[in-house]
């Protein structure tokens, strides 16, 4: 199980969030810590601050969350394809004449890059990784239901939070159903070659919609039978906020801001 969840994107982060050592912390506190750090990292816009955020949050996830470093690094690789391509486009420049410090001739035009633009792109990728670390602090320690609970307390319209609760649960029902369909198709050599795969893909997706619609009716009946009248109430664990946590958060943010001022 520990290694199996690597291959299922959706299940892996959800699984890690449920087993996180920081699961007992107050969800509103974790949301505030993650979002505050995210905003500071973006507003500071300094490589030193970004690096500090990346290192500090990785240490926190390891020490308090009990997350294996290997898992964490694996997850940080998710945005890498986008960051490298995006960073490449920011670093390079197209021009009809050679410009900057390096230029590569492509017959019709030149791809140029200057030391400044490369430095800018590297800082951008680092900043983005810092922001992703902050996002992971939320995603890997707080379950989606708790996060929706925080949104509910922030007075998001009831219809939206209700939809979120339902969608979150239905996603796993449908993933499970689709997994079975994939397996059934596989048992009939449905993924044998590309053409058959396309047919099976279309068939399973269409079948999934059918099952989803049928289940949606059954679930409404089940909810109505249990007294559903337009509001879903869940039992929420009481997770108290501890004063030292607030102090640590304030100290962390103050240190980041100080670092920003020192590197100005």
């Amino acid at each position, binding site marked *: 199980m520990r290694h199996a969840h690597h291959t299922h*994107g*959706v299940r892996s*982060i*959800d699984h890690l969030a449920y087993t996180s050592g920081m699961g007992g912390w107050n969800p509103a506190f974790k949301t505030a810590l993650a*979002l505050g750090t*995210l905003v500071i990292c*973006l507003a500071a816009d300094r490589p030193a601050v970004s690096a500090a955020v990346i290192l500090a949050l990785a240490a926190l996830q390891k020490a308090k969350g009990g997350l294996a470093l290997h898992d964490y690094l694996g*997850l940080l690789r*998710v*945005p890498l*394809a986008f*960051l490298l391509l*995006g960073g490449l*486009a920011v670093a390079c*420049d*197209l021009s009809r004449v050679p*410009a900057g410090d390096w230029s590569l001739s492509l017959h019709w035009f030149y791809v*140029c890059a*200057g030391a400044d*633009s490369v430095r800018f792109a590297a800082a*951008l990728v680092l900043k*983005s990784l810092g*922001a992703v670390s*902050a*996002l*992971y602090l*939320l*995603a890997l320690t707080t379950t*989606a239901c708790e*996060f929706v609970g925080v949104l509910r307390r922030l007075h998001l319209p009831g219809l*939206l939070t*209700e*939809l*979120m609760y*339902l*969608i979150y649960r*239905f*996603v796993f029902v*449908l*993933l499970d159903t689709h997994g079975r369909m994939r397996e059934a198709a596989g048992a009939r050599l449905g*993924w044998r070659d*590309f*053409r058959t795969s*396309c*047919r*099976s*893909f*279309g*068939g399973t*997706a*269409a079948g*999934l*919609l059918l099952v*989803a*619609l049928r289940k*949606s009716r059954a*679930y*409404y009946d089940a*909810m109505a039978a249990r007294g559903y009248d*337009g509001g879903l109430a869940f039992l929420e664990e009481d997770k108290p906020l501890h004063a030292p946590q607030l102090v640590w958060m304030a100290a962390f943010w103050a240190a980041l801001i100080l670092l920003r001022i020192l590197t100005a």
Partner: protein
Amino acid sequence: MTNRQKKLVRLTACAALLCGALPAAGAMHIMEGFLPPSMCVLWGVLALPFLLAGYFSIKRTVAHDRRAITLVAMAGAFIFVISSLKIPSVTGSCSHMTGTGLGAILFGPSAVSILGVIVLLFQAILLAHGGLTTLGANVFSMAVAGPFVSYGIYKLCQRLRVNKMVSVFLAAALGDLLTYCVTSVQLAAAYPSATGGFFGSLIEFLGVFAPTQLPLALVEGALTVVIMVALESYARPELRAVGFEEGHKA
């Protein structure tokens, strides 16, 4: 399969070969922290009117018929799952569908816009695709521009009496392409190039993502057609229930 469909599948197989050579796992979600704060706010504000329209339309649907709540939620979950499925490709790389075209054709663009926000939020916190600060920009490209254009193309093709499956293909493929163009515009507006300005930068962003996104759009179009063919043959009553065919209720 008919001859036409066979040709279509062959054509997309060639495209998928190209696609399979490159890793493209959710490459078009703008990652967390990649946009400057002003741009995050700007795109969020631009997406807001569409979201409000979608919210009110869903609210009306649910007020009219309480049973619709689980149907709408299932539609959202379906879009999420479709967009997390790996597309079959010859070399086994992992590319994902966006599902925006299919969603817009099935459920209508205004419903998809609000479901899109929820799906994108869950993609950020469950899959690490996209992010919280870039949510506005991603919502604008994937939950507003893509679905509305897909739906527009689909309706236009119907008006012009184009073959239904061709119109589904065009709607899904062009909707996907537009999403990619809008994302490139967003990135270029945030990071205009030093010499070429906005347009120079736009060409660069379109260029770096083109090798993965162009074949993906064709594959998405073809798969959407395969899904619609299957639904048309087995699920006509259900299609009518979600609003496909005669006028959308949401």
